[in-house]
């Protein structure tokens, strides 16, 4: 435990007992930290207590002065409570480096109701000249090359977001291009090029702790999917069976959207179209947990065209990461989709290179992804030594 020396007139045994995570010593030269408590009063009678902390030994040079003011009308008990609390604040950072550390915590009493914005800080946010808007610009580029192959990828993005408890607004633009080159034989080079861009928006209004309503609207383009230009708007509602304020621990949401998309294609489609308009609706159920034993998530999505109900897609997704018992953890994720909505695919057959390099979306009735694994550790797991020598 940290040994503290206290030079303080009002710090009696009872006050010292409220700081159980340090050991108080009688002489400054036996201490790891010394605290000198003094006070001064202003004409109005408000008394300001000053607590000067000064580290010694391994904490040498670590000094800090905290103050706490108590009004003239405060009782002796109220004064001692305020001084003792401030003493705990100042000593906590020393004790956090002693064997008492695992047993320490900081509590914060809020009057916050479920689903409300935390009242903790935020007092000066009313003066925010940007009114919660945050803008971002980004760009990146990537190149790789050697004698027989090379590839490059470039992207740029711009976004404007406004997040408050009542509203969430996201506007984003994105563009990327990628290309690659393969020297297939001495006199033959294969080149590929892909690109896509999008302008997306999401606007959500909070309607109480469980309900939200909003819409997404987007203009997108993707060479991979033969979609030269797709414009969509999708109003939606969402219900969370748990309050949204618990989303870091658990959520179970039901999201329903109904909207319309206008498609223009790069090449004539399987259904001999170059453009079409399609109303559709989507229902999605999502479940998420993050608990001390691990985390898990699952979702099910149903997508259907309203003008041609036979165009539809159902997908299931799940992931889990759990510690089964000391040392053994398992994780897995999987995704399965039944696909009946590829009305946008290009009519012509894909070439061998397009298939091998995944340059275009292929016709399929299903798509799956499955990943699972386990890790078992045993031995001296609590060894906290860090040894960075020779990497590894």
């Amino acid at each position: 435990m940290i040994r503290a020396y206290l030079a303080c007139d009002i710090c009696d045994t009872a006050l010292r007992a409220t700081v159980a995570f340090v050991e108080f010593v009688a002489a400054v030269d036996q201490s790891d930290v010394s605290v000198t408590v003094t006070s001064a009063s202003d004409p109005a009678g408000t008394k300001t207590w000053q607590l000067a902390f000064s580290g010694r030994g391994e904490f040498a040079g670590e000094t800090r002065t905290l103050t706490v003011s108590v009004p003239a009308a405060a009782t002796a008990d109220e004064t001692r409570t305020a001084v003792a609390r401030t003493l705990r604040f100042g000593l906590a950072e020393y004790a956090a480096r002693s064997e008492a550390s695992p047993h320490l915590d900081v509590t914060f009493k809020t009057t916050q109701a479920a689903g409300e914005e935390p009242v903790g800080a935020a007092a000066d946010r009313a003066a925010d000249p940007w009114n919660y808007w945050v803008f971002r610009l980004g760009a990146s580029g990537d190149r790789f090359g050697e004698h027989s192959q090379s590839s490059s990828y470039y992207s740029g993005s711009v976004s404007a977001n406004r997040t408050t408890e009542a509203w969430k607004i996201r506007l984003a633009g994105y563009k990327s291009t990628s290309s690659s080159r393969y020297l297939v034989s001495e006199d033959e080079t294969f080149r590929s090029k892909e690109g896509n861009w999008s302008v997306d928006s999401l606007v959500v209004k909070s309607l109480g702790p469980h309900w939200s309503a909003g819409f997404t609207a987007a203009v997108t383009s993707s060479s991979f999917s033969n979609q030269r230009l797709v414009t969509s708007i999708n109003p939606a509602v969402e219900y969370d069976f748990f309050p949204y304020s618990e989303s870091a621990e658990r959520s179970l949401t039901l999201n329903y959207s109904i909207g319309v998309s206008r498609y223009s294609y790069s090449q004539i489609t399987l259904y001999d179209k170059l453009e079409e308009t399609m109303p559709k609706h989507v229902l999605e159920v999502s479940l998420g947990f993050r608990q001390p034993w691990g985390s898990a998530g699952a979702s099910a999505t149903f997508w259907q065209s309203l003008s041609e109900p036979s165009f539809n897609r159902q997908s299931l997704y799940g992931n889990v990461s759990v510690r089964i018992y000391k040392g053994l953890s398992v994780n897995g994720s999987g995704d399965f989709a039944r696909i009946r909505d590829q009305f946008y695919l290009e009519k012509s057959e894909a070439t061998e290179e397009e298939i091998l390099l995944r340059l275009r979306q292929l016709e399929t009735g299903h798509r799956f992804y499955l990943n699972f694994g386990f890790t078992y550790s045993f031995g001296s797991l609590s060894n906290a030594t860090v040894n960075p020598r020779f990497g590894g």
Partner: protein
Amino acid sequence: MRHTTTLYLTAVRGFVTLLLAFAATVACAQGAAATPPAPTGAQAAAQAGPPPLRIFLDCQYECDTEYLRRAVTFVDYVRDRGVADLHVLVTTQSTGGGGSAWIVKFIGLQRFLGLDRTLTFTTGPTATSDERRREFGRIFKLGLVAYAADTPVAPKLDVTYRSPQQTPGASALVRDPWHRWVFRTNASASMSGEASTEYGSYRLNFSGSRVTPDWKVNVSAGTSYNENTFDLGDGEVIKSITESSNVNALVVKSLTGKWSWGNAGSISNSSFANTARAVSGSTGIEYDFFPYVESNRRSLTVTYRVGLSNYKYRELTVYDKLEETIPNHSVTVSLGLRQPWGSVGASSSFNQHLNHTDRFRSSTYGNADVRVFKGFSFYAYAGYSKIKDQVALRKGAATPEEILLRLEQQATNYSFNYSFGFSYSFGSIFTSIVNPRFGGVFD
């Protein structure tokens, strides 16, 4: 021509729709924001003191920021160091037990300039993401509390202590029957597919290590297998397989605070590299210009190794060999810095065969991730290798499929790789609010 016009009109309609929707919602949101919520009693009473502590939380990937914003609400989170009262810089390193050693540096800014503190803690190898974020949150709060002591929230804060008897599972470890050895085994499989393509990848790994300040011993073994199938139509199916296995050992002795002696050995095989069996051993010496104990913040090391490798090839090589033994040596210089302004790394290595000194490989790479000014950060990575040591290449030409699917190493005398990017943000500095609604659709 008509087709282009229609497309254009569709695009214009789309944008107009979006703009209208945007304008409507902004107007709406502004209306909603124009009446800020009445301050609670606590806030109103506390207006006199300094404003809430503004934190710039600088984690690379270790922190669950959404959780922290919900769990630690007595401070304000801002997205730039320039407007913060306190910069919290978090770094992690692996421990001998396979867990993480966290170093949380509290760097005072503005009214706290010069008031820096560092707290450390460890999380075990099997801690779940929830346990890690909770433990980080607890230490984070303990470090913040003294800085927050003069802010309006102080009366509602307190430091609590549960004496060890009250804390479940806190029995001290008396002795270690494993003598600091830690073992880990991991297996994973991943598969995906649709009507005409299927991918499968399978891995198995085992590792054991014993880490003390004086010695580091790592042994590991692993094998991997990948199989992909492509149906090209008309009954033509391409199946590609790559596989590799390896056994590695590393033994490092700490000589002084700056010198180390290391020995490495490995046995491996790889279909990509045309090796049926490669056996290598090396011994070397490393010097860190900074003490190793500062390696989470800065290191500058020079390593020299000398070794011997024996190769058995799967197929005849371009030098008409099926087996050979190559003595070699290498020198590597590495720099790593993680500072409040960002991080920088650079490394240069030269590896040469001692029996054919014209066979060598020299590689250099550098990376930087730097906050240049308020809101603007820049990253760049660049690497270049000059390659004159491809003795294992298979003789004969590769098929187009082998080239497109990158199934085997191809001849080259260079390799480069670079990437760069920037991000600039401006606007409101506050990032404290969490709003998870419609997360599944967009985030």
